[in-house]
């Protein structure tokens, strides 16, 4: 995240807090990434922040209110960081927040399975403030790995309260909040033994690099503390993570395993969603017919009937029935992978080959998210910094999202029969090539050096299926429905309008005129001007392209019209044309929502324009090549 953007957001938050009721006790949640801060935040505030078993998902500061008995608390979830003294935006935010004294108490959430490093962070925080409570989370995982932690002893040694908890099972969270409240109100005194004084006196005595000195002194202390409070439990259990990693990270099995995983996600999404899609399509058809009957009965004018039923209901219906089931399934599957801890393994395995193209391991993850929808795909790029992040944002649209796949698969099946699945696979490989090319060029053109790479591989965890489903459905389904009504509906209406006015047969309408203008351009790549217009119309929301094609071809759009337009296309297009259409459709500029997200994430007009123009150029290039190939083979 650009430092300036992060700072603006922080200042906005701080200013808002100043204006707000200062009587509210403010609790800050700080700690390493992936320790459960967001889980605790969700439990306390009832919000639905994203969580998942690997470092780096919370990058902004989240704020919410929690009720504890009669008191109302303001809870602030700071981004997870390893080090308070660093210069990345997340570290700056956390440090500034703590330094400004905006928190009445700081709850440092620590992973009991990873004591030394987490205690290091606790000691760093103790250097900034006395009002600290340590939440020792994931006690169950520590036990499963073979050791018990004596929280009371740790509290004695540290001089601050230590509350053991298992946040995912909601055990100990309220107690943590109660203790934090007590410390904030001054009812509970803390006598922390900070080591900052030692560091400065050591520096005076022997000089030496301050970062190194700090790290050594604090880690020495952390190690002593960890040894004092950690006791092995009788039987040493098998290291489950190591066993799974022996396959997933293995030189021979890694790639087959990952390919299998990806194929499974794909298959489950596309084919698992099909029955649901059919159900929704039928419902919308029925609704459309009913609405039409009602409008006729009410004597509504023809244009209103057309706009509402043929345009609005049919258009929105087509989109929702395709996107809702696929995205619902896809994002639940992805969240399962995230929660289990498999995602960083993918980044680990693929880092080296991706570097040949100017990408890195984590780009696999952002592209996978992009398969579901480009908007969270772009946001997911926050897990990287600097140049890597920017490149990730700019190429994300080259990954076909569920909306596009929902169009591409049926069209491929229609024109190529059973071989359609292989055609789709070929298209996906082509999108990979396009991404590699784009990344290669961008990495040479964008200034700056490649940022460093450190990746923590946390132990595997059992994913919480129910919590995932609840959270995903809320987040995604709501998002899709909102988008369907706010973006898709107006677009479909506008397309319908442009294709019927000014009156004068297809040729006289706006659509007709645009089609004629784009015809010469289309000739280069073997596509009709009408098709290009439809593609342009589909830019705001790509899933509407078939509807746009139907309307632009003068077919009118009726409920269940996908079948009509596709059978019409079957008579008009050759398989080669269909292929070119699919290729161009897959690669071209990002949809409106994605563009808005790209601008929000980069705050740069220049790069947003690059994000729009680059894929368009690639779409033209690749389609042109296929067209040339077709001409040569004739």
């Amino acid at each position, binding site marked *: 995240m650009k430092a300036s953007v992060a700072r603006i957001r922080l200042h906005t938050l701080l200013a808002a807090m100043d204006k707000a009721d200062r009587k509210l006790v403010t609790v800050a949640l700080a700690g390493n990434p992936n320790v459960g801060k967001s889980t605790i935040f969700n439990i306390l505030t009832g919000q639905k922040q994203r969580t998942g078993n690997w470092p780096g998902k919370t990058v902004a500061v989240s704020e919410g209110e929690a009720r504890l008995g009669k008191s109302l608390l303001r809870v602030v979830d700071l981004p997870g960081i*390893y080090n308070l003294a*660093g210069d990345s935006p997340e570290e700056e935010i956390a440090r500034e927040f703590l330094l400004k004294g905006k928190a009445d108490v700081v709850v440092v959430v620590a992973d009991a399975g990873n004591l*030394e*490093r987490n205690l290091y962070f606790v000691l760093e925080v103790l250097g900034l403030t006395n009002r600290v409570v340590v939440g020792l989370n994931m006690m169950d995982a520590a036990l499963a790995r073979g050791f018990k932690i004596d929280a009371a002893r740790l509290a004695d040694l540290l001089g601050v309260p230590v509350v053991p908890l298992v946040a995912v099972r909601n055990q100990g969270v309220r107690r943590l909040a109660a203790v934090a409240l007590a410390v904030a109100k001054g009812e509970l005194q803390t006598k922390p033994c900070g080591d900052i004084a030692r560091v400065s006196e050591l520096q005076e005595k022997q000089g030496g690099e301050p970062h*190194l000195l700090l790290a050594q002194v604090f880690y020495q202390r952390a190690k002593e503390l960890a040894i004092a409070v950690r006791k092995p439990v009788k039987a040493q259990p098998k290291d489950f993570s190591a066993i799974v990693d022996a396959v997933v*990270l293995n030189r021979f099995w890694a790639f087959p395993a990952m390919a299998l995983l990806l194929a499974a996600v794909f298959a489950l999404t596309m084919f698992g969603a099909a029955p649901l899609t059919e159900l929704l399509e039928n419902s919308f058809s029925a609704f459309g017919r009913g609405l039409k009957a009602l409008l006729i009965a009410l004597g509504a004018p023809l244009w209103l009937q057309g706009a509402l039923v043929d345009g609005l209901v049919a258009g929105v219906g087509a989109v929702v029935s395709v996107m809702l089931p696929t995205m619902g399934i896809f994002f639940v599957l992805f969240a399962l992978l995230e929660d289990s801890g498999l995602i960083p393994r993918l980044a680990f395995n693929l880092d*080296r080959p991706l570097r040949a193209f100017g990408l890195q391991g984590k780009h696999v993850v952002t592209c996978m998210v992009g398969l579901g929808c480009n908007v969270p795909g772009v946001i997911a790029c926050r897990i990287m910094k600097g140049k890597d992040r920017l490149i990730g944002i700019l190429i994300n649209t080259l990954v076909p999202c569920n909306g596009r796949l929902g169009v591409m698969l049926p069209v491929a099946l229609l024109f190529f029969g059973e071989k359609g699945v292989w055609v789709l696979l070929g298209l996906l490989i082509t999108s990979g090539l396009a991404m590699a090319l784009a990344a290669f060029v961008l990495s040479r053109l964008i200034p700056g050096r490649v940022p460093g790479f450190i990746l923590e591989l946390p132990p595997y965890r059992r994913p919480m299926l129910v919590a995932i489903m609840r959270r995903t459905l809320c987040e995604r389904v709501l998002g899709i429905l909102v988008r369907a009504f706010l973006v898709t509906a107006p677009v479909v209406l506008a397309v319908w309008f442009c294709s019927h006015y000014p009156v004068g047969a297809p040729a006289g309408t706006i659509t007709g005129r645009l089609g004629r203008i784009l015809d010469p351009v289309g000739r280069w790549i073997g596509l009709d001007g009408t098709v290009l217009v439809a593609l342009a119309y589909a830019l705001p929301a790509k899933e509407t392209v078939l509807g746009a094609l139907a309307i632009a071809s003068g077919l009118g759009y009726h409920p269940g019209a996908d079948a009509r337009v596709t059978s019409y296309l079957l008579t008009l297009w050759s398989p080669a044309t269909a292929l070119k259409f699919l290729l161009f459709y897959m690669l071209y500029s990002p949809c409106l929502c994605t563009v808005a997200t790209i601008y929000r994430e980069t705050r740069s007009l220049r790069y947003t324009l690059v994000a729009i123009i680059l894929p368009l150029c690639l779409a033209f290039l690749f389609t042109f090549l296929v067209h040339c190939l077709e001409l040569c083979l004739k």
Partner: protein
Amino acid sequence: MVLRRMATLDGLRLGSRAKIAAVAKGPLYQQLLAMGLTPGTEVEAVCRAPFGDPVLYAVRGYRLALRREEAATIVIEETDSQ
């Protein structure tokens, strides 16, 4: 006899342990220190990614992946006896 050789972390054989002697000033210097890779810490090379890079290391009870070039900034002395 215990042979001590100075080398860098990227040369550590899989399955071997070593003690960190020093961390050179690279772009990730602060990060590495904050993650616990301080002089005197024991590190073990666990496994390599399919293409050889990055390598997974075990340090202070957790696992961390580093690329060759960053691992090369960490000077180690091997503690396994010959």
